[in-house]
């Protein structure tokens, strides 16, 4: 019987693969241990939507048979993982975190689930999420079928959303990696709040077939892992052309850190105000240290500004218009009232009233956003900014209102609109844990040109070689 301890639960994909190859444990032992932990601690954080223990153990035994025959399929073979409950798994409930869909079952797998299955990765469960991935907007952390997803670093704090369970489960060592989705911040936010490494891929790089739609022009699926390297490994498995996704870019991704450009050749754009003034005071020291550490890698730095465009109004209009169209049957049936969050209900109803002229105006301004980023990236390779300006809020705090005693915002916006702006442009981003504020994780983000994931991952990997924030474990996760 293998000794599967905390070091295994917090190991990277590469380390777990080495353990399998060295026969420290079998795939079945790994799947059983992670399933036990997911079932035991998942509900403790409201992170577990559904355990898939039985199918995981069957799959893991197949993997062990393959390994016995010398059929090695790659780094993900035998590695447990879980997915946000927005992704279809055949024959199992796929609730989208929302009561009206609590009984929904699809008879097919999401493309990303099939792709990971082909690598030999072992799906152990589905993870909680904010209902309908947040819809047009939401006010409360409790807007989820499982209740508020609790942060493993402090259970009085929120795990972030909408990929809440994915962030909490990776942080608490319940799975080595998870899949989340982002329309505007839903991978980066829980990754930052929970202290895990999260990658939002370029729009169209990863198939969304079998995923709930919220905004056809903005939805992305991506990995949430222990390290930048793990994100690269998972992205390689899930990326690629898919005829079932009309937005598929038809591109593959090969994680190739060996071909990364020398760090000293990379120009990093930043805005000083993002680190000096915008973050909450408790988060500033860690974020400023992270900025210095990125600088010490040898990159060239350049001050930049985002074009002055109404990013918040754009994302709000586009997501509300598209989301309300997606969920028009729910709204018209009256079942929308079964949702948990009053702001989400109102947002979906109001979204149906958005005139075509306003939606098209937003989409035309979005062309200016894309053009603005093309111009910006003519002078820099990567943008650097705090992932979030605060650590995780209290679970009871309304998310649509400023915190009490919040300082007045600086006049210079810096790159603070980079989450909505980057999502509007469909460009990739990587969130890296970079320290703590009052015992809670904070993180920086690297944002790059379309399909520049290898560049972001190489800078992220260099940063993580020199720091150990991504290796820290929450105190309550044992």
């Amino acid at each position, binding site marked *: 019987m293998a000794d599967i301890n905390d070091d295994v639960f917090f190991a990277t994909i590469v380390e777990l693969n080495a353990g399998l190859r060295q026969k420290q444990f079998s795939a079945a032992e790994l799947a059983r241990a992670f399933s036990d932990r997911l079932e035991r601690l998942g509900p403790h954080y409201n992170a577990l939507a559904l355990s898939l223990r039985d199918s995981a153990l069957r799959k893991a035994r197949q993997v062990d048979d393959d390994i016995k025959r010398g059929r090695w399929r790659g780094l993900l073979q035998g590695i447990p993982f879980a997915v946000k409950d927005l992704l279809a798994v055949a024959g199992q409930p796929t609730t989208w975190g929302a009561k009206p869909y609590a009984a929904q079952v699809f008879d097919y797998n999401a493309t990303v689930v099939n792709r990971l299955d082909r690598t030999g990765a072992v799906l152990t469960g589905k993870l909680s999420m904010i209902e309908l991935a947040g819809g047009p907007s939401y006010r409360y952390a409790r807007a989820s079928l499982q209740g508020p997803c609790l942060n493993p670093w402090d259970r009085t704090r929120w795990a972030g959303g909408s990929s809440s369970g994915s962030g909490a489960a990776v942080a608490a060592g319940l799975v080595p990696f998870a899949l989340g989705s982002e329309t505007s911040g839903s991978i980066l936010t829980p990754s930052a709040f929970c202290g895990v490494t999260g990658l939002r891929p370029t729009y169209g790089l990863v198939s969304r077939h079998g995923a709930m739609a919220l905004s056809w022009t903005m939805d992305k699926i991506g990995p949430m892992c222990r390290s930048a390297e793990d994100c690269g490994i998972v992205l390689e498995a899930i990326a690629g052309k898919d005829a079932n996704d009309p937005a598929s870019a038809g591109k593959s991704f090969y994680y190739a850190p060996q071909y990364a450009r020398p760090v000293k050749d990379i120009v990093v754009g930043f805005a000083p105000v993002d680190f000096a003034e915008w973050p909450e005071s408790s988060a500033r020291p860690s974020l400023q240290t992270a900025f210095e550490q990125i600088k010490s890698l040898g990159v060239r730095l350049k001050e930049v500004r985002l074009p002055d*465009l109404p990013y918040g109004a754009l994302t709000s209009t586009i997501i509300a218009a598209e989301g309300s169209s997606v969920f028009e049957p729910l709204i018209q049936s009256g079942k929308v009232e079964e949702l948990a969050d009053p702001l989400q209900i109102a947002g979906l109803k109001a979204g149906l009233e958005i005139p075509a002229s306003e939606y098209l105006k937003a989409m035309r301004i979005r062309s200016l956003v894309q053009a603005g980023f093309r111009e910006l990236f003519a002078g820099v390779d990567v943008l650097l900014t705090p992932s979030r300006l605060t650590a995780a809020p209290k679970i009871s705090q309304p998310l649509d209102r400023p915190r009490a005693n919040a300082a007045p915002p600086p006049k210079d916006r810096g790159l603070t609109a980079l989450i909505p702006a980057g999502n509007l442009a469909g460009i990739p981003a990587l969130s890296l844990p970079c320290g703590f504020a009052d015992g809670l994780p904070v993180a920086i983000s690297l944002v790059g040109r379309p399909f520049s994931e290898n560049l972001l991952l190489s800078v992220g990997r260099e940063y993580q070689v020199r720091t150990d924030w991504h290796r820290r474990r929450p105190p309550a996760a044992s």
Partner: protein
Amino acid sequence: MKQPSGFTRRALLGVAAAAASAAQEPPPQAPPEQELNARRAQMKANFEQLSKTPLPMSIEPAFTFRA
């Protein structure tokens, strides 16, 4: 999107647990009509913000997001 199919016993247990958890949630506090009107007002404010951006006729909607 394909139609729902049947349940397994484990699936039913998972759904029941989820429904029980949702039932424990406190009901929404604000009157729904007030929420809806506030949301409409927010949308209108967004449209006003959008209208401040000059848009030459040559700018077409962004429907492709390729490199």
